[in-house]
């Protein structure tokens, strides 16, 4: 049996498949691609009047029947179906791009055509779905919130507002439906606000019972008022919202005051009613009612009920009551207040002459005799001339010294004048200076007043203030540095009279000796020029610059007194010897051996330690020698220079050194110490030879050049060998040959 992969692959089945394929191809050839169509295309047209509008060359999609590629872009074309839509419907593309028209409002574009549009639902089917449940109607500017409520939606369809076609975007006629709900209300509503419902209504806000009148709270009688009373003729939201809130806008025609009281009704009235108005005369008029005004009847002032235009000056009402017959002008309030006419207070300061202090309490007729007010003088002497205790000496401007308080306690501020009062001048009476001439011409120089008292009899000139201060005559302050003799050091502190014995300071001599006596210690020397040693700071220390002489003072010399060296009063200072011995006696331990050139060993810092440099001699000190006293070697007083430099000059040979060892100690010893020895010469035989112990005399009993081993080896070789020649056979000190 022949095996087929599938049961369907029978001969007849394959024939059927081929026939089906041929049939499909045949139908495509005959009818175009319409056999693939899922339904007929819409034959609806858009009309402009009686004329069908042509878009993309056709008046309806039905004319595209069989031309599938008009809308269905091939997969490889890169286009989508929406691109094909806007290829013909260019106006939609423009709306999308510019945000205008319905498609602009809906934010529709080529990618979203299929949200609302469809095809293949038959020749009479609309190409627009626009399901009200999903259509974003709020984007058109009108929300379907209220109209989509179940109870309403049942009776309302798209065509209720868009009669004819949903394409009809003209402002819908709301009234025809809404007047069925409440004809009377609608009639009144349209009468008040007009019939352009969408001017205010957006489908969301009904402005009905729940509307809160927030921008202008409705209180009192406003709460129950008819909306039209205020909003009549406002046909847009903007007009409603900008309705004037001033009272007069609505109530001007009812104004019982006929406009006399202005338009700010709210200052007296409230929305609770016109009656019961409250006027606060203090804040709501320019004339607060104070004192007796508060109690009088309104008509006392508002004669004939004239409420505005009244003057607020006293005279406007009280002119007829003026007992001054107009002499004091019309400004009653400058003296009187609203409480009582009699409670008058005249402010004398407005006359230009304030009544201060003592003037405040005198009776008016003291100044205004015979009730004469005008022309009253304002100068002090105008009233007080007869009381001048200065008899005119101090002029007539009393106020310069006196205040209005009382005549006593006069206090002239002399510092305001050219001559300021300081020091003792403050306490003197005015007349002491001003008795001879009026204040303006009183001289201001010291001698002008004090010439008769000059104790210097004119010798110091007339400019007293060079030395004297106004405090007191004896409070003298001299700038002595302005003179030839400047006061320095201790001179600055002494009293003037220490030097100036008489009243003629300019004649006082300037030499030191003129004031200062020589002390006894100076007697016949030191000359007469004190300043060569002394300064004005103090007598001591005297500061002679010894470095300027041929003998500079150093070390201990700096602290000794002059007389320690300059002992002989008969000898002048310039001739004093500079040799040490001329002052210093040799000490006992020198006994003349050190000569007289002390400076060779000593410095001025101190006698001890001496600092002789032994290295400059033929015998430099090394080792133990450096620590010895000079006198250890230099025992003889004869001379330092003659001492031997050989060791034996000082050191005796010890008993263990045979005399034959010679006197060249340095052959074995150093100056560091006698022991240990440091033999540095030739010694072929080991010095560490057992038994010798490093003691030279054990082998070299007699001389250093010869030796004998007999001390230890006397019996060697039976005593038959020469003991001084052992090394010939035993060069290294060992036994055997």
């Amino acid at each position: 049996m022949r095996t087929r992969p599938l049961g369907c692959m029978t001969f007849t089945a394959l024939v059927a498949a081929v026939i089906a394929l041929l049939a499909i191809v045949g139908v495509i050839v005959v009818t175009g691609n319409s056999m693939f169509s899922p339904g007929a295309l819409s034959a609806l047209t858009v009309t402009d009047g009686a004329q069908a509008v042509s878009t993309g060359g056709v008046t309806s999609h039905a004319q595209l029947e069989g031309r599938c590629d008009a809308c269905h872009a091939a997969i490889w074309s890169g286009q989508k179906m929406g691109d094909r839509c806007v290829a013909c419907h260019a106006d939609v593309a423009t709306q999308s791009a510019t945000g205008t028209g319905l498609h602009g409002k809906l934010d529709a574009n080529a990618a979203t055509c299929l949200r609302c549009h469809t095809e293949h639902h038959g020749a009479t089917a609309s190409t627009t779905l626009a399901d009200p449940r999903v259509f974003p109607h709020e984007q058109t500017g009108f929300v379907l919130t209220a109209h989509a409520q179940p109870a309403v939606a049942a009776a309302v369809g798209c065509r209720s507002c868009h009669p004819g076609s949903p394409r009809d975007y003209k402002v819908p006629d709301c009234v025809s439906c809404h007047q069925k709900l409440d004809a009377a209300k609608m009639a009144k509503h349209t009468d008040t606000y007009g019939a352009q419902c969408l001017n205010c209504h957006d489908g969301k806000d009904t402005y009905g019972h729940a509307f809160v009148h927030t921008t202008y709270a409705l209180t009192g009688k406003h709460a129950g008022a008819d909306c039209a009373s205020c909003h009549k003729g406002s046909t847009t939201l903007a007009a409603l919202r900008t309705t004037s809130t001033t009272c007069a806008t609505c109530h001007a025609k009812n104004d019982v005051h006929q406009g006399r009281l202005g338009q700010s009704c709210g200052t007296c009235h409230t929305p609770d009613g016109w009656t019961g108005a409250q006027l606060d005369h203090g804040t709501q008029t320019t004339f607060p009612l104070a004192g007796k005004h508060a109690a009088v009847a309104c008509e006392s002032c508002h004669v004939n009920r004239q409420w505005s235009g009244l003057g607020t000056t006293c005279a406007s009402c009280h002119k007829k009551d003026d007992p001054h017959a107009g002499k004091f002008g019309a400004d009653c309030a400058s003296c009187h207040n609203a409480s009582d006419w009699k409670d008058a207070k005249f402010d004398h300061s407005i006359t230009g002459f304030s009544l201060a202090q003592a003037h405040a309490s005198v009776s008016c007729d003291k100044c205004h005799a015979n009730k004469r007010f005008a022309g009253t003088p304002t100068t002090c002497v105008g009233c007080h001339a007869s009381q001048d205790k200065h008899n005119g000496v101090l002029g007539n401007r009393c106020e310069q010294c006196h205040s209005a308080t009382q005549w006593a306690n006069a206090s002239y501020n002399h510092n305001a004048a050219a001559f300021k009062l300081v020091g003792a001048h403050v306490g003197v009476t005015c007349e002491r200076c001003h008795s001879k001439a009026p204040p303006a011409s009183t001289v201001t120089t010291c001698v002008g007043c004090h010439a008769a008292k000059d104790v210097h009899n004119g010798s110091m000139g007339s400019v007293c203030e060079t030395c004297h201060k106004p405090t007191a005559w004896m409070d003298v302050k001299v700038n002595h540095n302005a003179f030839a003799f400047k006061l320095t050091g201790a001179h600055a502190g002494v009293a003037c009279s220490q030097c100036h014995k008489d009243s003629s300071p300019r004649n006082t001599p300037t030499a030191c000796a003129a004031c200062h006596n020589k002390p006894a210690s100076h007697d016949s020397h030191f000359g007469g020029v004190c300043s060569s040693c002394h300064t004005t700071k103090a007598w001591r220390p005297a500061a002679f610059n010894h470095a300027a002489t041929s003998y500079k003072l150093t070390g201990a010399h700096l602290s000794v007194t002059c007389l320690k060296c300059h002992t002989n009063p008969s000898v002048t200072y310039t001739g004093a010897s500079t040799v040490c011995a001329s002052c210093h006696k040799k000490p006992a331990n020198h006994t003349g051996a050190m000569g007289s050139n002390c400076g060779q060993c000593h410095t001025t810092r101190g006698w001890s330690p001496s600092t002789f440099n032994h290295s400059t001699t033929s015998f430099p000190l090394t080792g133990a020698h450096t620590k010895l006293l000079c006198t250890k070697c230099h025992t003889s007083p004869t001379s330092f220079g003659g001492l031997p430099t050989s060791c034996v000059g000082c050191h005796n040979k010890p008993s263990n050194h045979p005399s034959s060892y010679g006197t060249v100690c340095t052959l074995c010893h150093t100056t560091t110490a006698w022991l240990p020895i440091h033999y540095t010469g030739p010694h072929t035989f080991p010095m560490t030879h057992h038994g010798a112990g490093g003691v030279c005399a054990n082998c070299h009993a007699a001389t250093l050049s010869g030796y004998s081993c007999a001390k230890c080896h006397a019996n060697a070789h039976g005593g038959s060998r020469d003991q001084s020649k052992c090394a010939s056979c035993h060069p290294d000190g060992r036994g055997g040959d």
Partner: protein
Amino acid sequence: MRYSELLIALALVAAITAGYFVMTAATGVPAASGFIGHLMGVVGFALMLLTETLYSLRKRAMRRPRGSMRAWLRLHIVMGIVGPYLVLLHTAWTFNGLAGALSLLTAIVVASGFIGRYIYTAVPRTADGAVVEAQELTVMLEALREADAANPATASAAARAAHRKIERRIRTIERQMAALRWQRRALATWHTIHIPIGMAMFVVGFAHITAALYYATLLR
């Protein structure tokens, strides 16, 4: 059970119908081009393809058989009912052009399937589903008659029941033997109608799918 495959298919169809009505009530008749419509079309067509291929492959898998022929036929019948039903719902009840022709061909194939099923079951088969030849039927009939004679219907209730079962089986085999000749001829004739029309249906179906992909490109 004798009609179990039909009951299973009926249950599935009922469940799908219930879901379809729920959707229709909520959003209207699912459009052929919508997600649900396409889903039904794609799943339905896939089931129809499997209906043909799986059973056909099993029939020829003699060397490595998986499951009985009868079980595969029952699956074939279930899928052959449910698949076309889904495709029918996919049409959204419009029958235009090529898609309409496809619907018609599908209806013919399904209807012929029902007829074929009855012709098929009339042909005597072993428990495995293989066709029993007339000679074997004769042997079986004689064996049953001997058993019937040896087991008279006089004893217990159980014996009487067994007797009635044998009697019914004898009558069936007698009827089958009588009809066997024309039945085999009818089945052969049916095959030459059911399979070619099915083939034509698949060709038209693929043309429909290709056109849909090309023109609507899944409605992009």
